[in-house]
C-alpha cells in the first residue's frame, strides 16, 4: 500500500480527485433526474391507473397504484355516456390539419420572399410580422369574434378567390403529375397525349358544367363553389388546349407569351366568380370550421423559423436556379423546401400539437355540441357527464384516450420533437 501511495504523483492525485468528483456528480445527477422524471410523469401514470379502476375502488384507494381488477369497460362506458367523442376528435383533427396547411403555405411564401426576393419595405414588413409574437393573442379575440359573426363582403371575396384558385391549382397539379408519370413510362414526350388528355378533361368539365353548373349558376346570386370551379376549369382547359395546339404548329408565337393571356383570363374569371359566389361562404363564421381555422392563418413563429432555415442555404443554389430561368415559385417548391425538411417537420409537429391542444379560441366561437373540439369536449364531459368529479373513472378514461395518442407518437418520434424545438431558439 505504501509503495502505491508514494508512487502516486501530484498529477495522478489530481486526476483521481477529478474523476471522483465526476462520479459523485454523475450519481447525484442520476438521482435527481430519476426522481424528477418520476415526479413529472406521475400524473399521467395516476391518470392511466385511475382510468382502469371501478368507482368504489377509487374512493377507497389511497396510494394504490395498480388496480385490483382492470376495468376495461370504463373506456366503453365513457363513450356511451358521450357518443360525440369521435366527433370531437375529428373536429380537433380537422382544425389542426387545416391550420397546419394554411400556416405552412402562408409562412413559406412569406419567408421565401423575405429571404430571397428584394423588394422595397422588406425589412419593415418582416419586423411587423415578428413583432406580433410579443402581443398576447387574447387582445385580438374580442374583435376577431365580432368580425367572424359578420364577415365583411370583401373578406369573403378574398377567401372565395383563394379557395377557388387553390382548388384549381391542386387539380391541375394532380393531372400534370399523372401526365409526367405516363411520359416517363412511355420514355418520350407525346404531343398527342398532352392534347388528348386535356381534350378529354375539357369534354368532361364541359359536360359537368352544362348539366350541373349552369343550372346552379342560373339559380341565384349565390353561386355554389363547385359550379364556379367547373366554369373555371372549362375556360382554363380551353386555354391549356390552345397553347398546346399552338406549340404543335411551327412558326412565330404571339407577341406576348400565351401564359400571360391565360393569367389575365383566369384572373378575370376568378374575380367574376368570387363576386358572384360569396354566398357559399356565409357571412357568419361562428360555429364553423373556417372560423376555427382561418383566423390563425399567419404564424409569426413559422415565418421566423422558415427564414432561419432558408437563409442558411448556400447562395449558389438560388443563383443556379435563377440562371436556369426558374420562377420564384418553382425555386421555392423544388429547391428551397426539399432542402429544409427538418425545419418543416419541426413546424408540422409544433403546429399540430399546439392546435390539437387549443382551447380558448374554440371555446369562444363554437357553441353547438357537434362543433366542439376535443379539449372542450373533455371539459364539458367533466362538468356534465362526470358530474364535477363524481364519475372520475370515466373522466380519467376519457382523458387517457385523449392524451394517449399524443404521448405514444411523442415517445416514438421524441428525437424530432425535442431536437426540433430546441433548435428554434438558438439564434434568437
Amino acid at each position, binding site marked *: 500500500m505504501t509503495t502505491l501511495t508514494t508512487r502516486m504523483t501530484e498529477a495522478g492525485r489530481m486526476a483521481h480527485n477529478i474523476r471522483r468528483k465526476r462520479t459523485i456528480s454523475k450519481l*447525484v*445527477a*442520476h438521482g*435527481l*433526474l430519476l426522481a*424528477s*422524471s*418520476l415526479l*413529472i*410523469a406521475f*400524473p*399521467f401514470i*395516476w391518470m392511466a391507473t385511475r382510468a382502469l379502476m371501478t368507482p368504489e375502488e377509487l374512493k377507497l384507494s389511497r396510494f394504490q397504484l395498480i388496480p385490483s381488477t382492470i376495468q376495461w369497460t370504463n373506456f366503453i362506458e365513457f363513450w356511451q355516456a358521450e357518443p360525440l367523442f369521435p366527433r370531437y376528435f375529428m373536429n380537433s383533427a380537422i382544425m389542426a390539419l387545416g391550420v397546419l396547411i394554411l400556416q405552412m*403555405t*402562408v409562412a413559406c*411564401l*412569406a419567408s421565401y420572399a423575405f429571404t430571397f*426576393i*428584394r423588394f422595397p419595405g*422588406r425589412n419593415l*414588413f418582416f419586423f*411587423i*410580422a415578428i413583432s406580433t409574437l*410579443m*402581443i*398576447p393573442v*387574447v*387582445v*385580438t*379575440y*374580442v*374583435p376577431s369574434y*365580432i*368580425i367572424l359573426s359578420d364577415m365583411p363582403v370583401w373578406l369573403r371575396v378574398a377567401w372565395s378567390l383563394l379557395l377557388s384558385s387553390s382548388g384549381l391549382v391542386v387539380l391541375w397539379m394532380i393531372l400534370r403529375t399523372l401526365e409526367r408519370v405516363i411520359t416517363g413510362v412511355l420514355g418520350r414526350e407525346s404531343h398527342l397525349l398532352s392534347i388528348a388528355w386535356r381534350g378529354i378533361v375539357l369534354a368532361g368539365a364541359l359536360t359537368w358544367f352544362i348539366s350541373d353548373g349552369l343550372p346552379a349558376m342560373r339559380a341565384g346570386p349565390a353561386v355554389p363553389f363547385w359550379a364556379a370551379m367547373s366554369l373555371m376549369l372549362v375556360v382554363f382547359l380551353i386555354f391549356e388546349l390552345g397553347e398546346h395546339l399552338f406549340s404543335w404548329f411551327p412558326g412565330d408565337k404571339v407577341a*406576348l407569351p400565351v401564359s400571360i393571356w391565360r393569367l389575365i383570363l383566369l384572373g378575370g374569371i376568378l374575380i367574376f366568380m368570387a363576386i358572384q359566389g360569396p354566398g357559399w361562404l356565409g357571412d357568419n363564421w361562428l360555429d364553423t370550421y373556417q372560423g376555427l381555422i382561418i*383566423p390563425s*392563418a*399567419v404564424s409569426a413563429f413559422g415565418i421566423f423559423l422558415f427564414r432561419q432555415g432558408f437563409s442558411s442555404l448556400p447562395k449558389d443554389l438560388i443563383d443556379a436556379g435563377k440562371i436556369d430561368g426558374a420562377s*420564384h415559385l418553382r425555386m421555392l417548391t423544388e429547391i428551397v423546401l426539399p432542402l429544409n425538411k427538418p425545419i418543416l417537420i419541426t413546424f408540422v409537429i409544433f403546429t399540430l*400539437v399546439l392546435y*390539437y*391542444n387549443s*382551447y*380558448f379560441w374554440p371555446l369562444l366561437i363554437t357553441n353547438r355540441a357537434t362543433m366542439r373540439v376535443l*379539449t372542450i369536449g*373533455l371539459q364539458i364531459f*367533466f362538468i356534465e357527464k362526470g358530474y364535477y368529479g363524481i364519475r372520475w373513472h370515466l*373522466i*380519467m378514461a376519457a*382523458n387517457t384516450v385523449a*392524451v394517449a395518442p*399524443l*404521448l405514444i407518437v411523442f415517445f416514438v418520434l*421524441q428525437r424530432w*420533437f*425535442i431536437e426540433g424545438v*430546441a433548435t428554434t*431558439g*438558438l439564434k*434568437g
Partner: protein
Amino acid sequence: MSSTSEVMAQRGSPPSWPQRIIGLYHNRHLREAITGYAFIVPAFLSLGVWWLYPMVYSVYLSLTRWNFMSPTKRFVGLENYARLIQHAEFWNVLWNTIYFSGATVILGLTGGLVLALALNQKLRGRSFYRAMMFSPWITPTVAAALVWLWIYNRDVGIFNQILMFLGQSRIDWIGSGQGMLRLWAMPALIIFTVWKSIGYNMVYFLAGLTYIPSELYEAADIDGASAYQKFRHITLPLLSPMTFFLLVVSLINTFNAFDQIRVMTQGGPAGATRTMVYYLYQNAFEFFDVGYGSAVAVVLLFLLILLTFIQFRAARSWVHYG
C-alpha cells in the same frame, strides 16, 4: 430582355404607351418587387385582418359601452378606464397576474436549468429522462388540468392523502375555502404551470449548454476553479442568450395562460386566481361588458409591451452574445 431605352434605341423613336407597358413586363426589378409583394400578401392580409385591425379595434371598443347584442355601440370616452382604476378587483387581478407570472417563470427557469445541468452529463438513459420530463408540455392543458384537479382534490386527492399520512391536516387547495385557505389556490396553479413547462425550459437550456465549449471548463479545472465559480463565470454568462429568450417567451406564455384557470378554479376562490386574461374573458364573454373587457385588453397589451421593452433594455447589461 428589353428595357424602355432599348426599345427606344431599336425603334429609333420614343416608345408608345403600349410598348412601355410591355416594357414594364420585361423590367426585372419590377417583376421581382411584384413577386415579392405577391408572396407576402397572404401573410399580411391575414395579419392585417386578424392581428393589426383587432388591436386598433380593441382600443376603439375600450372607449365604448356595448353588450354584444345591441346594434349600436355607445361611445363613452375613458369611462371604462376610470372604472378600471377605481375597481378594487382590477388591482387584485393585476397583482395575481404578476404573482402568477413571476413565480412560474422564476421557478420554471431555475428548475429547468438545474435539470438541464444534470442532464448535460454523459449519462446513460439521457433520452429516457428527457422524454419523461418533456412529456407534460405536449399534452393538452385541459386534459392535464383535469388530472391535477383530482390530485388537488380535498378528499381523495393524492396531495392531501400524503399530508394526512404525514399527520398534517388537509389543505383545501382549490376549493371554496375562506380566509387563509384562499392562499393555496394560486400556488396550486403555479405548481401546475411549472410542472407543465419545466421540461420545455430544460430542453432549451440543454441546447444552450451544448454550445459551451468544454475546453473552457477544462481550463477552469486546471486553474483550480470551484464548481460554483465555473457555474457563475462560464455557464451563466454563456447561457444568457438562451435565458433571455426563455424569459421573454415564458413571460408571454404565463400572461396568456387561460386553460388551466378555466378548468381548475374559474378565477376563484373569490378571485384569488383571476389573472388579467381571465378577467378579460369574464367581462367580455360572461358579463357581456365588451367595452370594459376591451379596456382590460388594452391595459394587458401595454403592460406586456412595457415588460418586453424593459427586458430588452435590461438585456444589454447581462446578456453576452458570441
